């Protein structure tokens, strides 16, 4: 429990550092928000008045504190391009990206764990070699290319879904999930291939350790040794990987949303980057970071639960 508490504190400190970093980066590089809002033709007096009103003349750290506090309250500022509350713009995008990522993650786990165990059990066999080669090729697939091919094959040729026919979750939740299945698959596939490869090599290297010999010496069958002894140890590095993969998937969804025209966080991030709409960019980046950090924290805690050597140290 002490361990979990430590991880929560670490996460909060990291979140603080990340937001401060992002805030400062935008503060110093993105130029004057007042000018951005009013356009270049505004009189200096008006700009100055707005600066005063927005608190831009205060010390940076004070501005950061105000921004962070507002952010916690759910006020993420006002979009330059749309003149509307960023929170409103972002709020209904978060469930889209989160659902997409969770779907992809579940697919990855469901594909990778059984396949990884299977290949590890049959090392050196024909099927193992075939899976290894397929794996290598899939790992080399850029996720968006996988997305394009999936659109071509499942969308255009087999007509299993309508490319571009996104359904909002507020209208039809099942239609929404149905549409996300294919993009989720495109995100999950390369990561699943990596997980299979990692689990396989992890099982193999664990199987060479002394405790496996001990387990055999007690009369365990090969199966019992694998499931009762090796698997738990072999999964430890895989858990770390799954955590990193989940974080990557959150970021990877930015690209896949583009391929499948899904209005999630990635979409809005890209539009805002090209519009130089900094409050939105900042809000989305901080939201994604928050998701990533929470995932990392949960993984760390699970890690501590699985590996007794960590939590006690």
């Amino acid at each position, binding site marked *: 429990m002490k361990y979990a508490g430590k991880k929560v504190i670490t996460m909060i*400190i*990291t979140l603080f*550092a*990340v937001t401060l970093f*992002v805030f400062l*980066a*935008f503060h110093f*590089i*993105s130029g004057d928000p007042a000018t951005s809002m009013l356009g270049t033709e505004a009189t200096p007096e008006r700009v100055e008045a707005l600066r005063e009103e927005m608190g831009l003349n205060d010390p940076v750290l004070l501005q950061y504190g105000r921004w962070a506090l507002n952010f916690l309250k759910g006020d993420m500022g006002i979009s330059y391009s749309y003149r509307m509350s960023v929170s409103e713009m972002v709020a209904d995008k978060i469930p889209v990206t989160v659902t997409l990522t969770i779907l992809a993650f579940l697919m990855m786990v469901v594909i990778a764990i059984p396949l990884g165990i299977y290949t590890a059990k049959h090392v050196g066999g024909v099927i193992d070699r075939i899976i290894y080669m397929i794996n*290598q*090729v899939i*790992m*080399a*697939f*850029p*996720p*968006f*290319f996988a997305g*394009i*091919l999936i*659109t*071509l094959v499942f969308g*255009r040729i087999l007509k299993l879904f309508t490319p571009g026919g996104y359904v909002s979750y507020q209208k039809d939740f099942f239609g929404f999930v149905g549409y996300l299945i294919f993009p989720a698959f495109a995100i999950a596939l390369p990561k699943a291939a990596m997980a299979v490869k990692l689990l396989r090599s992890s099982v193999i290297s664990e199987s060479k350790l002394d405790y496996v010999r001990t387990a055999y010496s007690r009369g365990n069958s090969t199966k019992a040794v694998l499931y009762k002894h090796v698997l738990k140890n072999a999964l430890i590095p895989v858990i770390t990987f799954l955590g990193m993969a989940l*974080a*990557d998937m*959150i*970021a*990877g969804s*930015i*690209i896949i949303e*583009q*391929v499948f025209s899904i209005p999630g966080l990635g979409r809005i*991030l*890209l539009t*805002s*980057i*090209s519009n*130089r709409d*900094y409050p939105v*960019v900042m809000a989305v*980046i901080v939201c*994604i*970071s928050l998701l*990533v*950090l929470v995932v*990392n924290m949960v993984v760390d805690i699970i890690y501590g639960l699985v590996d007794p050597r960590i939590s006690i140290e």
Partner: protein
Amino acid sequence: MIRNGKKNYNLIVGSIITGFILLLILVGTFYTPYDPDAMDAASKFAGVSLKHPMGCDNFGRDIFSRVLEGSRTTFIVAAGTVFIGTFFGIIMGALTGYYGGIVDEILMRFNDAMFAFPSILLALLFISLFGSGKYQVILALGIAFIPSFARIVRSEFIKCKNMDYVKNAKLQGASNIRIMFVHILPNTVTVLLSAIMIGFNNAVLAEAGMSFLGIGVQPPDASLGRMLSEAQTYLFSAPTYAIFPGLIIILMVLGFSLLGDGLKSEE
């Protein structure tokens, strides 16, 4: 390449694929069948033929020529990224791993935070602040890659600095710099090499992804990712437009990852 009577297929196949890609890039540097940017309305969406081995795109540009140029751009960006990541990663990892202490603690906390961050997100942040283009992408990805290299080098240095041969070198009067870069660094080469292979692949995929999103390499530079994003619109009418650039990316990544695996099992 033969060990215990078993051929190292990974190394052989990986070398062949990588060799093929490098050859393409080398040839593309000096010669392309057509000007990659020359438009020709007559051959718009031309199919695969002897004249245009990969067909033509929506402006009638020769896809093969564009693929040659695009792979070169992608390769240069990936190589630049890995160079920046490795160079600064080694320095940072060596110093923090070898000396330890409070600086190490702070830098590593910072590193952990960066590492937890998907590199593409960091690159996006960078691009949104500094604009897009080839050099911005190299810089953005390069910086985003430093933490992972620093982490690997650091853990190798921590492992090595407690070895008796390092203590021995210290006893014989070797300076810290000499111990770090003459005694320890050569021992991290194996690990570093496989990290470089993986890093290179990640860089190829990240560059392609960013260019696909339109925030990476900008025209007139051709890039495989950009070609794919343009091709997406004409997916049904001209599938070769998407398939060939995609294939080259896959081959590039596949070659390096097989090579990396092969080298690892060779140790």
